[in-house]
């Protein structure tokens, strides 16, 4: 691949990632937000994280872009989730999840 083009893509990605992070803090910091908007913003993390996670563990993209049900990821998620909740741990589901997925593929090769 053309590395110069990739560099320009990365610079573009930087611009569109940095501005949405920076502008709200510059424009809003210290201002009193409308209570309804503030209450809505408090729910954003609880919304955005599952919106990414659930499709990620339920659906797998095949070689041609077609979607398959991902049983292994779902089972591993169902094991990791209660354990992560019990120990309030960010790293436990990462490490345990990878071990279980690796083990699942070893014992049940597709």
């Amino acid at each position, binding site marked *: 691949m053309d590395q110069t083009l990739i560099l320009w893509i990365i610079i573009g990605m930087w611009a569109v*990632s940095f501005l949405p992070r920076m502008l709200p803090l510059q424009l809003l910091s210290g201002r009193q937000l409308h209570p309804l908007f503030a209450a809505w913003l408090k729910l954003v993390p609880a919304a955005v994280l599952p919106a990414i996670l659930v499709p990620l563990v339920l659906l797998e993209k095949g070689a041609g872009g077609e979607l398959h049900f991902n049983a292994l990821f779902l089972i591993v998620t169902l094991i990791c989730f209660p354990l992560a909740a019990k120990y309030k741990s960010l790293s436990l589901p990462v490490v345990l999840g990878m071990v279980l997925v690796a083990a699942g593929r070893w014992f049940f090769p597709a």
Partner: protein
Amino acid sequence: MTNVLPSTGRQIINGLQRSFPIILSYIPVGFTYGVLAHKAGISDINVILMSMLVFAGSGQFIAVGMMAGGAGALAVILTTFVVNLRHLLMAASLSPWMAQWSRPLLVLFSADITDETFAMNSAKAVELNDCKAEALSLNITAHSSWVLGGALGALASGLISDVRPLGLDFALAGMFIGLIVLQVDSTVKVLTAICAGILGTVLYACGLQEFYIIIATVVAATFGLGVELWIKR
């Protein structure tokens, strides 16, 4: 407040300690990104540069996948914009707590807003005005570990023929499980999360693979707010 503020040095150490669980997940997830990016034909310098400048887990994974699939520059940049637009909402939700920050420090802080640093900083949002050094230390340590993980992945890429037998492709999902567990701590948030998960999956399956995150987020948070208002009625 009557309590004495921790010294700057103490705050930096506190930030380092609080970033530890993030480091434990950023190293393997960053490593996986590095392996995949290198395999997609991106040079090691560009792999590292993307982690330094863009610093967004899912955004970088999606971009690498698109580049490997031969997508054009504009499509990759536009998708990155949409996928990372959620940081706008995160920055806005931290802003009321950061009135006493100078503009240059706000720029430094905002460059490192991710799902993970946001989760950690919003958990102690009331202290953000008093503990600037702690928040910056947490952010910069987390970012450094992300870059390190990516660099290690790019270097080790030649040794790893396929990430699947190692379970590396689950790393990102594992990190999100940990984040949800930290964030979802009330009935309204549980209902919001369920709504977002279902909606995100349906939209993704319907082919809205660039916009499903932002649409599901906005709709589910609005739904959650409706539930909250209805309960308090």
